[in-house]
């Protein structure tokens, strides 16, 4: 049992990271009933933008760049953590403007549009930053390891999990505890009523999509120091995100969070005791759950199902 504890702890940390990756995707699918297949590319975009801001070659005039590089890495990293998602948010605005043409039609069109956007974004990343791998610099104080229970643990992973927990908490506060959240939720299910209440529906949708984009980018920045940065890194991210949403049940905030933690635990613990099954374990978990609960753990009947 004592041997198992480190793996449970690791599973929880991994689960928080997965939840962070799935968060933006969940918002858009849950509140807008749109599958954003560009989620992975936006995740990668966030990492690349952060790299541009913190890396050795900022896209600035030479003297400004030199000045910027004088700023301690801790500050640069912190600024990138806020600025890069905002920049990605601008891309999100553009995508949402395109998506407006698909509202009211089959949700398939939104799915296909974002699939196209994903292809284009990935190619732009490749053309801009090249095919090679990059490493996102992080402050010295966040990297390295520490010893706990006779084992060396990665310091950064705990910071990353902490950031994930904060992001999850903030999103929860926004949708559950603010009037905006109530409007967003109402807008997803009854646009007529929202209009009757005098809320601008298109602004609401724009807001949700941009928030989803920014969360994807934020996740990319947080995870980049662990997974590395390369043009196709988004593919690694979207697949767990999809699984988690199906597992948790579309439209359920806590469903997604709990599903993430379950997947994290399954992958983490099986990694230690049945290592070759670790990735497959999340698929097996999915099949097991939907055999008994067709809509996932906390899924509700969607308006689009009828």
């Amino acid at each position, binding site marked *: 049992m004592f041997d198992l504890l480190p793996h449970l702890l690791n599973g929880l940390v991994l689960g928080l990271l997965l939840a962070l990756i799935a968060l933006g995707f969940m918002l858009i699918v849950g509140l807008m009933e749109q599958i954003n297949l560009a989620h992975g590319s936006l995740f990668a975009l966030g990492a690349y933008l952060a790299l541009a801001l913190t890396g050795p070659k900022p896209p600035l005039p030479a003297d400004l760049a030199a000045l910027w590089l004088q700023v301690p890495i801790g500050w640069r990293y912190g600024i990138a953590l806020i600025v890069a998602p905002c920049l990605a948010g601008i891309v999100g605005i553009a995508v949402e403007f395109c998506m407006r043409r698909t509202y009211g039609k089959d949700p398939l069109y939104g799915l296909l549009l974002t699939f196209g956007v994903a292809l284009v974004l990935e190619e732009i990343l490749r053309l801009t930053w090249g095919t090679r*791998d990059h490493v996102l610099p992080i402050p010295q104080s966040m990297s390295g390891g520490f010893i706990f229970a006779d*084992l060396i643990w990665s310091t950064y992973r705990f910071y990353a999990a902490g950031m994930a927990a904060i992001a999850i908490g903030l999103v929860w506060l926004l949708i559950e505890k603010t009037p905006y959240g109530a409007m967003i939720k109402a807008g997803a299910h009854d646009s007529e009523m929202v209009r009757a209440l005098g809320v601008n529906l298109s602004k609401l949708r724009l807001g949700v999509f941009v928030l989803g984009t920014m969360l994807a980018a934020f996740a990319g920045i947080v995870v980049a120091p662990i997974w*590395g940065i390369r043009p196709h890194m988004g593919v690694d991210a979207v697949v767990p995100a999809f699984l988690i949403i199906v597992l948790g049940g579309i439209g359920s905030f806590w469903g997604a969070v709990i599903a993430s933690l379950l997947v994290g635990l399954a992958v983490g613990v099986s990694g230690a005791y049945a290592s070759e099954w670790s*990735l497959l374990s999340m698929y097996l978990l999915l099949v097991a759950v939907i055999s008994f609960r067709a809509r996932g753990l906390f899924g509700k009947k969607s308006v689009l199902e009828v």
Partner: protein
Amino acid sequence: MTKNGKAGRGPSRRSVLKGSLMTASLAGVGAFYGPWHHNRAYAQSKKPIKLGLTNDAGGQFGNSGQDEHRAIRMVIDEWNARGGVLGRKIEWVTADTESSPAAGTRVAERFITREDCPILIGALHSGVANAITQVANKYGTIFLNTNSSAPSEAGENCSRIKFVWDGNGTNFSKAAVANAVKSIGKNWLLLTNDYVWGHSTAAATKALVEANGGKIIDNLLVPQNTRDFTSYLLKIQQIKPQVVGTAIAGDDNKALREQITQLKLDSAGGPAWINNQQDWPDVWGSPQSLFGVFGTTWYHKLDLPGVPEFVKKWQDANKNGPIPVPGNVSYNGYMATQELFRAMERAGSTNNIAIIKALEGHKMSAKDRMQHFDAYIDPVTHQVQQTIYLCRKNTKPVDNTDHFEIMSWAEPKDVLDDAAPTKCKLVPYDKVPSVDA
């Protein structure tokens, strides 16, 4: 050639090729078909030889694919500057093989049947290499597998028309294991990617560890596309082996490297790490995360005559490239292409069988290959048997490209993959369709 037999409805390949050559000479059609890098102003006395460069540009191996592409182009330019091969100009075409076997098949078919390429060069991913081999086998087209290091390439998946230029997992294990068992410890743990390459590399390592009196206390199989290795790293700390032998490839290995070095698991106190080959284009992205002992076939700071000149030449040809110095991937691409041209000159022919015979068993001097020992092309497996270098992260770099410290080098005969010849069955020459450029 293929037996056309009773089908006989479509034109045979030869007549199709003739047809396409005829149309290609119609400048209008050729021009429509896009910006192939031809130089039509070249002396027209002899037909150029057109090579098909099957280099990945996208996907997991895009970075390395373009690195070997640059080196192959260099050799072509050098020979053309000297008047070509057999007095004929070398032309080339390329298309993205996308690190995907389906794309590899399509590109190979295109290069052979539409572009009439007698030779294909370039591969990183064993699946893509196999897909191209399947097509090349059918037409008898020579295929140079420059950089796919799966042991199966020179074993069960070998071919009369395929030549393998990289060292493989078995070669690297042989270079590293005996030494490590004696000097570091007998308790080994293996960390293995759960697919063919990982399994065959792990099997080779296991056999060598046991032959040298060591034992494998556990083998952790890691699924492909694993990005988070923490559970494995914790488990390794719990098991406490003396040596960890890894066979993790591609993006998985890059993630593993990041995570091990962040934890400083490779420094004093932890286990010693025996890593497989590290490709230079991958290292260049994150040199700070190199760990343990790993292999390579060549390094740009080898203290051998010719190396500085080669590096200079490479840099002149690749100004403003993404990587400032050549590494093993570029090196393998360069050597493969150069030996191909020399074989054509030796054979005095562009006939595929003549070239194959000129390559088989061919000996290459250490000086010429800028390695420590002479190398040769194994006539039984078609793999280049060459010097294998063991390296570790350089703690005293002389400049910002000097990431490796070369610890030792092994002679080809000491790192030979003994099992390969029993697995590799080459078809007789007369079973290979004849191809001429």
